[in-house]
């Protein structure tokens, strides 16, 4: 599904990602873990095309490294932002319509209604996106927008951050439902070990822009290098 080969991102003299290589199989739910500044969002940005990366990024057997952002979205790479970015002056329904028309290349009002229902946003469908939604609803809208593009791969950037524990649990169930319902491959950035363990079949850990662990959640969270990165001890 997705293959990263020596992906490197530099901002001036700063190396944000250094030679990241791993594969994601179709249908996986992969947790992307690491302390703040580890390079998780930069990796999402390079996969989705928001920043230019060196190395090679292949999606469904096609190299997408030099494809612009909108073409990667049309190819099936959907993503959310850590801070929700709704299209502010549009209603929730219009947000989804734009995503569907341009991302999936068709307009299907029934499908939009289905996505609104699944994301529990039907009652807010004609509300202005930025002004009428609470944080949790904005996060649902982020995912709904991405789903409207009919993605094969969904990159979720800290969609559970800021939610209290009950909301977080219900959101986790929702993500599992989406995974099954839409046949998605999901990569999720998350700090919470419990969430990763409950949701993901595999976890990849970044630290200082480098991949330091890759395995099942149990394996990576018992990895001494991962423990060091989280406890702040000097990295060997």
């Amino acid at each position: 599904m997705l293959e990263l080969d020596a992906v490197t991102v530099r901002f001036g003299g700063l190396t944000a990602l250094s030679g990241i290589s791993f594969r994601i199989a179709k249908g996986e739910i992969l947790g992307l873990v690491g302390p703040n500044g580890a390079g998780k969002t930069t990796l999402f940005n390079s996969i989705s095309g928001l920043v230019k990366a060196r190395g090679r990024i292949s999606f469904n057997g096609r190299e997408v490294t030099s494809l612009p952002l909108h073409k990667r979205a049309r190819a099936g790479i959907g993503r959310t932002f850590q801070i929700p970015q709704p299209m502010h002056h549009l209603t929730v329904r219009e947000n989804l319509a734009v995503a569907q028309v341009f991302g999936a290349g068709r307009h299907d009002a029934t499908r939009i209604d289905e996505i609104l229902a699944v994301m529990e946003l039907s009652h807010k469908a004609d509300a202005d996106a930025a002004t009428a939604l609470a944080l949790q609803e904005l996060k649902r809208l982020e995912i709904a927008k991405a789903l409207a593009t009919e993605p094969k791969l969904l990159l979720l950037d800290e969609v559970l951050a800021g939610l209290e524990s009950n909301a977080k649990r219900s959101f986790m169930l929702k993500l599992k439902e989406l995974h099954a319902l839409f046949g998605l491959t999901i990569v999720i950035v998350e700090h919470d070990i419990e969430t990763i363990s409950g949701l993901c079949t595999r976890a990849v850990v970044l630290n200082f822009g480098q991949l330091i662990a890759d395995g099942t959640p149990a394996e990576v969270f018992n990895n001494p290098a991962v423990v060091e990165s989280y406890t702040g001890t000097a990295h060997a």
Partner: protein
Amino acid sequence: MPVTSNASVQAKPASPSRVQGAVTGAGLVVLALLPLAAGASPYMLGLLISALILAGLALSWALLGNLGGMVSFGHAAFFGVGAYGSALLAGKLGVPVLLAIPLGGLIATVFSLAMLPALRLSGPYFALAILAYAQIFRILATELDWLTGGAAGLQRYPGLPTVLGFNLADRAGSYVLVLAFVAVFAFVYMALRRSHVGTALRAIADSEDATRVVGVNATVLKTWMLLLSAFIAGVFGALNAHIIGFLEPDYAFSGIWSVMPIIAAVFGGYRSVLGPVFGAVVIYLFDQVIAKSLIPVGHQILLGIVLAIMVLLAPNGLSGLVARFLPRLTGRSLSNAEKGHA
């Protein structure tokens, strides 16, 4: 999905698009009847024609700002190129005037392609780039003596023709023709806004990354808006050229054609379709009729004061005021989709 039980017995509200269409239509009818209300004197008709030329230019500026998210300080470039293009086609090649006018718009569109590198710029940088662009064309029109007549300009080119016995060159005919062009472009603008492309363009103005990440090619859509805006500005430049019957670089590329559409659009409410049109009519008539009679020299100072007051008290302009007060008069509230969009 829950369904309201009383939905079937309630009167279905008019859709926002129908409301917007009706308001736009009513607004254009008001403009059509304006000469009668103004006494239809040749002087007033002349002022109203100039106001409508400005209205068309303001519409093109607002389209670029509202849908393209670009602030232009250089619409004089498109206006002037359209004017010269049409005058040269009609005067030197004998192209019929009614064909030369849209071709003038097309020439302005082609010349606007030179602005495409500036689309990568945003905010004040784009505004400055397009301002410089307008200056380049003013200088070219002055220096290309063999083509444009240089600083002396062009005088010998045809005016508006008579069609089916209706003389478009007289003031009533010119008014109807310019109003027809304003109406056509207003409905094109409205249809575009209502389309998915228009919705995406409004979203681009909010957050380009948020739209690109769902597959919107923001650069291509913004390019189309620049081309369309240049076309509309060029058409009104061409219309103006054939109405006034002379062209010189300092007039055709005057900064007035860059500044006045901004004032008109902001005064009328640039986020709406009809706001820039009515803003242009009100501002122009206020300047020419009231301000000039009060302060014959330097009357523009009153224009500045009125605009400042409007921006401070009603930042959404005339259309915002209508959206605020109309529901109180009619007893119904406007939906979010209707507010300020007509």
